[in-house]
């Protein structure tokens, strides 16, 4: 007898509508991903990030009947998290920053956005590129995080941000161009 197969997201969504315990399985499945995503796109303490994550889960639960099965559940959950974080900063009249990334995440973001060899990146170089990324407008920073840290493909980013695929590709490419331009303006040459 084989092991019992884990339930699919769509099945758990159906069960969760009448049973919050089933929703617990969905939350367990995505809490780590969503926690890190929220932390990456906002500059929040661990406690604040957890508070926002709980609000996101409640929002997901309330909207379970609006889940469209043609989407990946993760894309739909990321979308709700994205909108909630944007609303949070709008309410607080503040601007999210990206310096809450871990060193390894920074390296991944930098090496994916600009053609640069990890081996020759020194600490000073990384710090200077970080400041260039932080100066990018929110829409470009977030799309670079989704693409290169969350490692989402264009289809998923399209579903998360509700933007056409062409616009997503344009934003990724413009974000990278803008970063290279910022680096040139600041005479950052780590290549």
């Amino acid at each position, binding site marked *: 007898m084989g092991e019992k197969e884990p339930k699919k997201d769509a099945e758990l969504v159906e069960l969760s*509508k009448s049973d919050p315990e089933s*929703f617990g399985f969905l939350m367990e499945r995505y809490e780590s991903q969503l926690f890190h995503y929220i932390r990456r796109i906002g500059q929040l303490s661990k406690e604040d990030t957890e508070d926002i994550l*709980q609000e996101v889960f409640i929002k997901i639960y309330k909207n379970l009947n609006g889940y469209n099965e043609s989407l990946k559940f993760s894309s739909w959950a990321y979308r709700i998290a994205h909108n909630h974080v944007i609303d949070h900063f709008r309410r607080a009249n503040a601007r999210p920053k990206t310096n809450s990334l871990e060193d390894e995440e920074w390296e991944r973001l930098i090496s994916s956005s600009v053609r640069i060899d990890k081996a020759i990146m020194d600490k000073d170089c990384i710090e200077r590129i970080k400041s260039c990324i932080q100066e990018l407008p929110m829409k470009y920073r977030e799309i670079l995080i989704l693409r290169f840290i969350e490692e989402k493909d264009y289809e998923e980013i399209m579903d998360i941000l509700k933007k056409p695929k062409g616009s997503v590709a344009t934003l990724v490419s413009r974000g990278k161009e803008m970063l290279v331009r910022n680096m040139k303006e600041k005479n950052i040459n780590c290549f």
Partner: protein
Amino acid sequence: MDDIVKSTIEKIRNEHISPEPRWKYLARKYFAWIVFAAIIFLGAASFSAAYYLVSGLDWDLYRFSHRSFLSFAIPLIPYFWILLIGAFLAIALADMRKTENGYRYGLGKMIIIAAGSLIAIGAVFSLIGFGGRLNSLVAKSFPYYGSHMMMTKETQWMQPDSGFLAGTIISVSSNGMTLVDLNSRRWDIATDSNTLVRPAVDVLQGEMIKVIGKKQDAGLFHANEIRPWSGMGMMSGQGGRNGYGGGIMNGQGMMRGGK
């Protein structure tokens, strides 16, 4: 981290939080499509009104007014309706983008869907004569539209000073006819052997015709060409020629009327 899962489940239970009913999402989803359909219908009505005006005009008259086709055509374009069609199309595209999966459609696909359905429904409206009725309604409700913005076949053919006249024949004689124009003014129309009478014209009392020629005096108009009220008159009509049918046939299969 597991605390978040537990505390969220507790919160859901304690605060009796439950998923929003499905009908709310369905209503929102279908509302966006109903708005889209309504906008497309309005655009289609505008399309049929524009088509009604454009299809009623005689686009070959620039040859008689000694102007280039462009300078002749520009004042005849139904700008009012074209602006409305453009506005409805833009609103329909914006609304479509707001539908549940609207962001997944490329702009080209969206334009094809919106413009295609607008033209198809507009064609049906035109077939049932809605375009003409809409023009009359708008002209009646907004007199400025009727007098300044609506270029119709009637306005195009009621320019005797420019050589275009239309009306109903009230009598026919051997060297011409008398007609009452669209403003109820009486005209004596002089014809000669060079007057071209299109094959479909029935030169009979009570027939409506269009005349291309030259105003010679108050109430006197020399006809160079006579056409039926509807169309160019290239196809033969049913009625007799009443003296004009005996005219010579020119190389293009048209008849020269008069004595």
